[in-house]
Every structure is written in structure tokens, then in C-alpha cells.
């Protein structure tokens, strides 16, 4: 497998008044182009920390991240992030939130008219073109997250980083957005890293699931290949024995190891 993005022996420690806290220890992960990888673990296991290191928002204490063979240690639009709480700018309309990113990232390669069309195209990908003139305060949480995804996609990132993107949404909205994301991934073939604590979500969406041990000094406990054929449908998979087997694998990891470690 050719590594498009590789996380090489990443460890990170935070020093505070109480001493140093070791969050991640020796994390090694190689991700191929177009692959959808989920990182799952209990809260506080450092999975968001790992994502922030890949995003460049945090600096690894040891090791590093290579994207197409080049080290990345600062944030950039080639690793667009969809944050957990959407992080749209409330004073800009839906259109302007995406436009701001497009203007900043693609001003050299696209003309003004092309950028306008590109914003609309990405909003229609997440089916939000009808609300382009609304402010984030006027749309629902699920819609905000859609716009957040459109903004990230519009930057044409090499890697799309999703930090518990649907964690704050109700179950139905979450299912809709997961389907949208699957469809977009199927169409565009993005390379995606998604942080999640939702077992079904990780099995449904991913090519591989990276399971983190509990912190402190969290590391990768197990990596599970999800060899379910695509396109996948949540309804068909619901009584698919292999799907349920994979689901059970993740559950066993999360709930089999965790109490023993925590005790």
C-alpha cells in the first residue's frame, strides 16, 4: 500500500503546572490516497489530539506527519478540517463562509466567476444551495455541519479531516449526513480521516477503523479492515452478518479492554 499520508511515530506531551501529560505515544499510521479512515476511542483518548496534529494545529513532540512525502507541521488548506461544532463565522452568510475559504485558497487558479460557481457547486454537493443567503444562526445544526463540510470540500484538500463531525446532531440528521458524506466520498474519492465515537458510523463509512487505547499515553490498539463492498446502504447492512461481525469487533475492543485498563 502506497502511503499518501503517513503518521510516523507521533507522540505528544503537554506540560502544565502539575507536570507533563503524555497524550499520545508512538502512533504509526499510513493512509492511502482515497482511503476513508476512522479513528475511534473513548473520550479523552487523544483521538482529537491526533487529528489536530495532522491538521498542524498542534505540534507533535516526537515524530511527524508526511503528506505526499513532505513533512507538514503547520495548518494549511491542503488538510481542511470540519470541526465538531461547525465553526462557521456567524456574521457571514452560508455563501460567504464558503466564499471566504474559496477566495483565500483558490484565488490563483480560478477566476472570480469560476470561484462563484465553485462555491455554489460545493453547496449543492451538500444540498445547501437553497440556503446560501442565510446566516448560520438561521439554519439548523445539521445544516451548519453541511456547510462546514462544503467549506472544507471547496478548498480541494488533499486530506479531509473530520473531528466528530456529527457528534452534536440527532440520530436522524446524523444518518442523513453520513449518507451524504458516503455519496460525496464515493463520487470524489477524497482521502478522509474521521474522528468518531460512534461504532455504527465508523463501520458504515470507513475502509479502515483505527482503534485507540485509553489515555494517558494512548496508542493505536488495533486496526480493523472494513471490507464491505461499496456503495453501502445502511438499510441493507442492518442485517448483514459481516457488518454485524465487524461492529462486534469494534465493540469488543472498546468495551472489552477499556474497563480492565481503567481499573
Amino acid at each position, binding site marked *: 500500500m502506497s502511503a499518501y499520508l503517513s503518521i510516523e511515530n507521533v507522540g505528544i506531551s503537554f506540560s502544565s503546572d502539575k507536570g507533563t501529560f503524555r497524550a499520545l505515544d508512538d502512533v504509526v499510521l499510513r493512509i492511502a490516497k482515497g482511503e476513508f479512515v476512522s479513528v475511534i476511542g473513548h473520550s479523552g483518548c487523544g483521538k482529537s489530539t491526533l487529528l489536530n496534529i495532522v491538521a498542524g*494545529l498542534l505540534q507533535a513532540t516526537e515524530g511527524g506527519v508526511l503528506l505526499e512525502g513532505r513533512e507538514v507541521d503547520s*495548518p*494549511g488548506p491542503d*488538510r481542511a478540517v470540519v470541526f465538531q461544532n461547525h465553526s462557521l*463565522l456567524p*456574521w457571514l452568510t452560508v455563501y460567504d463562509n464558503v466564499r*471566504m*475559504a474559496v477566495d*483565500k485558497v483558490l484565488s490563483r487558479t480560478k477566476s472570480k466567476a469560476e470561484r462563484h460557481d465553485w462555491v455554489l457547486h460545493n453547496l449543492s454537493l451538500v444540498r445547501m444551495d437553497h440556503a446560501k443567503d442565510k446566516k448560520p444562526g438561521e439554519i439548523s445544526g445539521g445544516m451548519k455541519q453541511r456547510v462546514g463540510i462544503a467549506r472544507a470540500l471547496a478548498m480541494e484538500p488533499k486530506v479531509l479531516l473530520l473531528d466528530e463531525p456529527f457528534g452534536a446532531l440527532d440520530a436522524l440528521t446524523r444518518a442523513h449526513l453520513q449518507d451524504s458524506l458516503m455519496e460525496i466520498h464515493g463520487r470524489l474519492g477524497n482521502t478522509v480521516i474521521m474522528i468518531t465515537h460512534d461504532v455504527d458510523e465508523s463501520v458504515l463509512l470507513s475502509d479502515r477503523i483505527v482503534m485507540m487505547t485509553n489515555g494517558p499515553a494512548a496508542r493505536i490498539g488495533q486496526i480493523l479492515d472494513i471490507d464491505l463492498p461499496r456503495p453501502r446502504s445502511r438499510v441493507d447492512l442492518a442485517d448483514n452478518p459481516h457488518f454485524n461481525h465487524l461492529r462486534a469487533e469494534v465493540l469488543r475492543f472498546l468495551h472489552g479492554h477499556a474497563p480492565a485498563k481503567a481499573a
Partner: protein
Amino acid sequence: MTMVSNITAAAPAEASTPAKRPLAKSQAAKTAREIAGRVLPPVLGLAVLLGVWQLACSGPNALLPGPVKVIQSTWPLIVDPFFDHGGVDKGLFWHIFASLKRVAVGFALSSVAGIFLGVLIGQSTLAFRALDPIFQVLRTVPPLAWLPISLAAFRQADPSAIFVIFITSIWPIILNTAVGVRNIPQDYRNVALVLRLSPIEFFFKIVIPATVPYIFTGLKIGIGLSWLAIIAAEMLIGGVGIGFFIWDAWNSSLMSEIILALVYVGLVGFMLDRLITFVGKLLSN
């Protein structure tokens, strides 16, 4: 909700003549009631205040004029605020206008400097540590205490008054802006980092819009303080201005004129406050 529906239900019953459009009528009645409900209480409050004032100052030995006497003796000033007999013998409009001009200049300067310094100490821990103690001490200095230094430095009345306004109104602007900048959610900063916004883009596209509500809280306090300071400063430095008008009236024992001026000062201060609130609302939408 219950109240509204009660009103709509009651209104058609009260309309004695058979109406062609009962809905429109009840709507009009509802609006009339709402207006009355808003206008009557303040009118009543004012009437009581004036009544008490009139009673308190109606005795033969009263030291201050009552409202009727104030209006009688200042009537020429009320009806003609625009006269100009040269020197400081001008209508009240010109005095207030002169004071407002000083406030406009001083407040504009303090807004720009205050927002800049506020962003600086809000954004940089180093600047905060260096400047905050100084600001915390200086902001407690009363406005008029700055006047002698200001006069010594500028040697002219106008710049000195403007400096007093500046130095009085800048502190709440700085401190509120700084709080606003420190409260910018980490999410917005992360967005800026991922997009690789330059510092200037970050300032105009993130910092200022995210901080507008805080800035305007500071500006609102600042304009109030400016107006307080200018009246006091003008009493001491003289020239045309509503502060000096009050001082001049005091020296001539024209109590009615002082009271009239106070009413105007209050009204103008109120309007300045509302103006800033209005602009703030306009910008934060």
C-alpha cells in the same frame, strides 16, 4: 400570547358601529392600545416629577425656580436656539454644537486608539502584561485631573478639552475590546489558521467582526464618559460650549438657564448613547 388574543377578542365587541372590516378595526384598536401602553407611563412619570418639583419650589423662599418659572424666564432661549450675537453670546444650539464638535474629535481619536490598543493587549499576552497594569491605574484618574497637565502641554483650550475627552473615554474602549478579542472562540482562530489568513486578513475578517459587540459596549460607555467630561472641562476652560454656558449662567445667578441647559445636556447625552447603540446594532447584523 393570551394577552394578545384577549385584546383581539375584546376589540370588535367594543366597536359599537357595525364595521365593514372588523379585522382591520380590531387591528387598529390593538395598535392604539399598544401605543397608549407605551406612551402613557413615561408621560405620567414626567408629570409627577414636574408636579413635585413645582410644589417644592413654589414657596416664597424657594432657592430654585420651579418648572413654570424656568420656562417663563428662558422662553427666549428656548424659541430661538440659533441666535449669534458674537463672542460667547450665542444660542443654545451653538453651545451644544461646539461641545459636540469637541466630543466628536476626541471620541473619534479615542475610538481608533482604543480599539487598536484593545486588540493589541487582547491578542498578545506580552503586551497585556506590559500595559494592563498601567491602564488599570490610569483609568481611575478622574477626567478633570488631566486638565491641568493637558493645558500645560497644549497651551490652548480646544486641544486640551479634546485631550481630556480622549483620555477619559479611551479606557472602557480598550478594556472591552481586549475582553472581546480574548473571547474570540478558538474555532474561529482555527479556521483562520487552516485558511492561512495573513495577520491583516485575520484582523479585518475575524477579529473585528467577532469583537463588534464588545467594542460597542466600550464605545457606549466611552461616549457617556466623554459627554460627562466635556461639560466639566468646558466649565473650566471657557469659550463657546454648553459647559461654559452653565458656568456663565451660574456666575450671573441665572438658575433657570442652568436648569434649561441641564435638560439639554441630558437629552443630548441620551441621544449620543442611542446613536452608538443604533450603529452597533447596524454593524453586528
